[in-house]
């Protein structure tokens, strides 16, 4: 084991070559499979994780480059109020069909809501513009993220 990573709040010791990506380490060594491999080229966004709170492409992030950073995958974000609100809103709005892009969408949207409690549709589209979906046509995803934001604001003020 030649590399220590902070994944989902825990220290993970993994064996990684200089060229191994974070995605390979997450999926193949740590069995954290919520992040998917769609293009392996940084375009589709299905591998999105958070690195120090910011959305990042796990397929373009070298594992060694993530040493010292806080990496969070969908598996490590279930407890946040924003993620719970997003999961509920995605389910209620029908914001996914096949679900392959959903983990990446949720992780990117969680990072958005952490910074912007009341994003308008344009802000949601901009924040998620690096995440592709081939099933839904995106509309229900925008609606779900806004609904989650509204639910969070309501929860905070209650």
């Amino acid at each position, binding site marked *: 084991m030649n590399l220590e990573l902070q994944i989902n709040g825990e220290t993970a010791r993994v064996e990684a070559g200089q060229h191994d990506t974070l995605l390979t380490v997450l999926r193949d060594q740590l069995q954290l499979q*919520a992040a*998917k*491999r769609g293009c392996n080229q940084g375009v*589709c966004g299905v591998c999105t994780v958070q690195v120090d709170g910011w959305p990042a492409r796990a397929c373009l992030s070298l594992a060694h480059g993530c040493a010292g950073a806080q990496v969070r995958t969908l598996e490590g974000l279930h407890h946040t109020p924003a993620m719970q609100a997003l999961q509920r809103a995605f*389910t209620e709005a029908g914001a*996914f069909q096949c*679900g*392959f892009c959903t983990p990446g969408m949720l992780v990117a949207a969680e990072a958005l809501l952490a910074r912007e409690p009341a994003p308008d549709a344009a802000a949601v589209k901009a924040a998620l513009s690096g995440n*592709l979906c081939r*099933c839904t046509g995106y509309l229900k995803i925008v609606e779900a993220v806004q609904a989650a934001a509204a639910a969070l604001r309501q929860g905070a003020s209650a």
Partner: protein
Amino acid sequence: MSSFIQAVGASIPQLDSDEKVTGRAQYIADLWRPGMLHAAIVQSPHAHARIRGYDLQAALALPGVRAIVTGDDLDAAHRMGAFIKDEPAFAKGKVRYVGEIVAAVAADTEAIARAAARLVRVDYEVLPAALDPELALQPGAPWVHDDAASYVKVFDAGTQGNVCSRTTLSEGDVAAAWAQCDVVVERRYQTQAQAHLSLEPCGALAEVDAQGRITLWSANQSVFRVQANVCESLGLPMTRLRCQTPRVGAGFGNKMEAHVQPVLVRLAMKARRTVRLILSREEDFETVRARHPFVIRMKTGAKRDGTLLAREVELVLDGGAYGDDSPGVLGYALLMNVGPYNIPNVHAHGQVAYTNKMRFGAFRGFGVPQVTFASEQQIDEIALQLGLDPIELRRRNLKTGNAPWFCGQQVASNGLTQCLAMVEHASGWQAARAARAQRAQGDKRIGYGVATSAHIGGLLASGAIVRMLEDGSVLLNTGAVDIGQGSNTVLTQICAEALKIAPEQVAIASPDTDGSPYNWGTTASRVTYVAGRSVVQAAAEVEKKIKQHASEMLECAVDDLELRAGGRVGVKGVPGRELPFAAVSGRAHWAAGGPIIGSHSWVFDQKTVDPKRAVATGLPFSQIGIFSFTALVVEVEVDILTGKVRVPRAWSAVDVGRAINPQLVTGQIEGAFVQGLGFALTEEMVWDGGKLANPTLMDYKIPTFAELPEVLKAYIVESHEPTGPFGAKSVGEIGMNAVAAAIANGVADAVGVRAERLPMSGERILQALLQPAGAAA
């Protein structure tokens, strides 16, 4: 006691929502088995070449390599194909397109497998290639198949040379009709290859047991088609292969017929180990399949009052190297080319050309988006020439009520008039068009386009088994693969409604060729209608058996019994006299009659062609299904400096018969619209010689959040199909059919440019704008 809430018509979330929002849903690349090997493929660098031999020495010498399969591991006698048996499991003797699978390696890790794949040496004798479909049909073109005429076919295909198939459909007398037309529009159109781009790349995992029986999981749209294709191409008895499915990361036709399953099964058999193969995005682009490029020559004529009189269409489809679904796409495109209009004289004919390109096959719309792009523009051009409003011209010619379709099949339910009225009203059509000049700002021009279309759902057979478990809960098994669109949820709702129980009391079995009843596939907009009908009938058999038991237990006549909400059976008019399903099922299991099982299977049998009306040659299916309809209005913005086209607003209405789950229905309409947007504006596979030049998401642009219109409205029209489960028809494909056509009409309305090619890229529109007025793009 759980109270019954009507299941049909309820927008309940997808049953697998929890696993999808927590990241626990397992797709093919998430499956692991003990001792599993990893596979990599070797692809052809040539469009057309004879394989003289293989040198595997260096690859086999790499530590960790366990097995390699090549064409030498295949028996030339075995070939697969839905319509024409022309395709080996992978390249045998010849390669026919760049990217075709020629060998596969199984190794301890994916990295070793990929390294070994690069060491496989194939000795090729390069042959001249046929790359253009029209040229491929000319005399003297290189033949993609040495003797295509000798292949086994399931219909009168007319295969000869590079003619993969040909079809002709005729009604009335076109030749005589032209003379009666006051206006005739004629053009040649070309549509592009579109990649399905399901975000999950194709993959499969095969496990061989001690007896040599194989279990195969794969990204698929039908476990039964996977089983048939693998067994056909490898010469295996179907009993030797069991096919199952993980969650599927979407399918739009690409995962219906075989992709890597045949080569992977052969590799697992040779390695005698469990092997998994997951394609990279580039490999998926190059080897799987794509939407057919069409060349469309179309001519439409009408009388001065707008009555459509005649249509002639000739299609040339690029079929690629193997038949796959091409004959079906050709036949269906010809059948649907007229659109939902009464045109008494129609001659429709076309050919599929074999070329040295990847397979072109089924893709949402199955040829209809292509012909609709041409047809709906011609309808618009006629309206323009006659000075009629495009919607008014359509309304005058629309198929209404039970008016039969082209070639004669009766239409049982038709909500098209309502669809058109809905989008006309919602878009404010009249006022919006009148004000479009005022809405033009700076370099932006605004236009409005309308288009209609239809689709047929109901093809081929499906069964359902409904079993009541000891506790009175219900297990539903249909064999239909949910590819993300939500059929598990919809079929569960249908079953729950039929038995008056809550959807939570029904579990749905995962498709398995060992245990599920036959289901042809999740394709052709068919699952709700075809599998749904089987579910209703199987549930009816369960209801009958419940009542037989209850009549003996409650000592009353069967006819006096009714199912009551929440899983009870009781005597009509006597509220207290009832039994829970658990009591009935317990008796069936332990005392009398045996466990309660209902089953049903059927195949749609209404003929497509009425021989008294139409003449048909080479139509590969004689019975298809029932008709759904759509009308669509789009607002289009064209930047006259760049030619870039944008769709700020869109209104799409679909007659689905009955929406079993309205939210899933609008999800289909919205998703299909945005996929149609990509087809219309940005998506195009481009070849450099025989090689695909843009097999990456960097270079192949599907719509993103940025392209989502500011307003996208999906409207459900419910015409109640008398033969459908609770009145339902279909919705999977139809929302895509009219999108490119409506946008093209909007572009013409905005800037006067007629689109003859797809996609309507900024470059193409700008070039037309720079030409004298009236130029086509």
